[in-house]
């Protein structure tokens, strides 16, 4: 614990008094200072300073645990290590589902199904363990006002008709999902930092943040000086707090992200899993340059954020009503691609899975432009078509935003 006060580390009290005059009050201050300066501040010889460093280090260093102990702890612990997503082939490739204690990011173009996925996961988390759930409550941090309770109930009813046959069960389920609406970055960060108390008091087993990208991109224009650093810092702090919560309470955390185009040389037309579009200014202004540069879709929020999440699932449009979900980054799973559609009961996988080995050529990609808001208009679809001439499908009827929910339903 970095902020442990020196008084509690076992250092002699008069020394702590003396150090506090120089603004060294916790372990972090003590360890950030070089030994020579410490010598001057404490008035001790170098050898004594080394032993003091050891004392302070012992107080804030992590405990050692062997991997075997970790494994036996996991096996003996009744709570499961993976949260099944109820998409059978996806679960299989992920060794059981979303890994508890890690951050999973779901990213994709607007309207692809990320929020639907979140709804599905929320319902699943409230189910008892025998049915593949986590038997706990869910914290849903909504930054886009996309949460629709009606849709949630519809998913529950259609996916598990036997379980949710009575009103009683539905009411119980909806009571377990706590929705927080936050609309600025600062609010989101503050909410995340205060989640610990809620987790303990409400027995939370899943945290969903939908979406991380929308607030950040609204507030930080990376073309302005200094904003890049501020944005990275904010995201890193958020990621660190979320990781700490995930590990401390051993729960999965789902985050949603957006897509940005990255303009690159011609060879890079293929989808690059986990590729590294960094915090560069968004390139929509450039379009297709004369020497044939085309763009490819990558997750937004930059390189630093990509390092912070443990698992990354990317959704893309494939053809008219089917989409793909790609396992792009995972500590356990190889690349895999699954086709799914969105129906009444949430996401349904179609066809067989498709593990991408490194020798295969990739098949067909779409270039999706950034669609920051949910207010689709036909104009934007046309814009998309211009950039993907090999995708003839997007010309047919488009649904209008339905009144109760915020989604565009593609007929």
């Amino acid at each position, binding site marked *: 614990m970095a902020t442990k006060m020196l008084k509690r580390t076992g250092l002699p009290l008069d020394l702590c008094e003396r150090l506090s005059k120089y603004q060294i009050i916790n372990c972090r201050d003590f360890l950030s200072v070089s030994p020579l300066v410490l010598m001057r501040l404490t008035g001790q010889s170098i050898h004594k300073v080394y032993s003091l460093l050891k004392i302070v280090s012992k107080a804030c260093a992590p405990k050692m645990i062997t991997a075997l*102990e970790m494994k036996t702890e996991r096996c003996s612990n009744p709570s499961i290590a993976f949260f099944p997503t109820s998409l059978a082939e996806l679960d299989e490739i992920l060794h059981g589902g979303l890994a508890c204690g890690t951050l999973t990011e779901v990213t994709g173009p607007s309207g692809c199904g990320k929020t639907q996925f979140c709804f599905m996961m929320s319902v699943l988390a409230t189910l008892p363990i025998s049915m593949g759930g986590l038997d706990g409550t869910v914290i849903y941090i909504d930054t886009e006002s996309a949460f629709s309770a009606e849709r949630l109930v519809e998913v529950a009813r259609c996916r598990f008709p036997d379980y949710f046959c009575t009103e009683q069960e539905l009411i119980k389920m909806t009571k377990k999902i706590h929705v927080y609406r936050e609309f600025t970055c600062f609010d989101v960060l503050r909410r995340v930092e205060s989640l610990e108390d809620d987790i303990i008091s409400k027995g939370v087993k899943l945290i969903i943040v939908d979406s991380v990208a929308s607030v950040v991109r609204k507030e930080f224009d990376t073309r302005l000086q200094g904003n890049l650093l501020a944005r990275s810092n904010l995201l890193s702090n958020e990621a660190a707090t979320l990781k700490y919560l995930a590990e401390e309470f051993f729960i999965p955390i789902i985050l949603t992200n957006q897509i940005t185009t990255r303009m690159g040389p011609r060879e890079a037309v293929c989808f690059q899993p986990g590729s590294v579009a960094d915090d560069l200014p968004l390139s929509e202004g450039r379009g297709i340059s004369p020497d044939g540069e085309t763009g490819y879709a990558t997750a937004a929020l930059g390189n630093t954020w990509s390092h912070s999440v443990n698992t990354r699932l990317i959704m893309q449009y494939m053809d008219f009503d089917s989409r793909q979900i790609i396992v792009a980054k995972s500590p356990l799973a190889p690349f895999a691609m699954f086709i799914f559609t969105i129906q009444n009961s949430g996401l349904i996988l179609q066809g067989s899975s498709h593990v991408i080995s490194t020798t295969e050529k990739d098949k067909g990609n779409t270039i999706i432009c950034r669609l920051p808001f949910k207010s689709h208009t036909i104009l934007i679809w046309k814009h998309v078509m211009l950039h993907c001439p090999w995708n003839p499908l997007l010309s047919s009827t488009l649904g209008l935003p339905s009144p109760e929910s915020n989604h565009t339903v593609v007929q």
Partner: protein
Amino acid sequence: MQRDLGSFPLPPALRAKLIGCGFHTAEDVSAVRASELSKEVGISKEEALEVLQIVRCKKFGEESQASTGSPSLRKCTALELLAEEHSQGSIITFSSALDEILGGGVPVAKITEICGAPGVGKTQLSIQLVVDAQIPKCFGGLGGESVFIDTEGSFIVERVAGVAQAAVHHCHLIAESGQDEAQQEAIKEFSVSSILSRIYYFRCHDYVELLAQAHLLGDFLAEHRQVRIIVIDSIAFPFRHQLEDLSLRTRLLNGLAQQLIAMANDYRVAVVLTNQMTTRFGEVCSSLVPALGESWGHAATTRLILHWEGKLRFASLYKSPSQKEATVPYQITNCL
């Protein structure tokens, strides 16, 4: 010895008193006895003794053991070093191409840095190395234990168990095909649970915990003499977001690097660090470079950069004192 007293690590108050009484160089002080020194300068006898011992570079008491794990003057001939290097071996990665460019595997008593974009396989490689360090000597491994310091939370035990299983299987195949007695013996002890029990895992949540752990690692290694590899995954993460003061970050990183090099040499361990990539904005285009700055590049002896090229993963040896620069493809399977 005409060495000035100011250059010794004396407490400042003592030093001021000594200089006030006219002692300016080491020669002046060492000529005097402890009790005489204490009377002249007006300090206690213990302090006088301490001063004399520091000046004369003698080991004393328990306090000195912290800093003097090895004699301050180490000299040996290049021939001795050659013999040492031959005998200590290196840690294989189970990917023959990678082993080749590294000159047999990850070298012991050196710092190796692995940089790469997210998702390219750095954590996988670290997990592989942590398991490979435990392969018994008769199979060509080091038969040692491993320390894994995790700052990102990507260490998932199930994956480690999978990699360990594959390694055990591999060794079984070798033992069965050969007739070596020693191999048959060793294979009985080499199992997934024995591998897991010899991986020491530390989870550091921020840079302060990492620094604290580095201070204590020396003692840990002295107690566990069998440790042959330390992996820090990743060293970039805690330093990249909590420290706004870049000069503080550079200083802390340099201190950390020095401690790790000292440990690597004293205890004969291989140190593997994982780094992240960041963009450097150039005039024409921007390129990906390893994070943590230019000066950090000097800390590692060997630098391996993992990157994508289309669908394939490549590993490039970027910096090495003994091997040529090369790029090879590799794949992540159940076993790397």
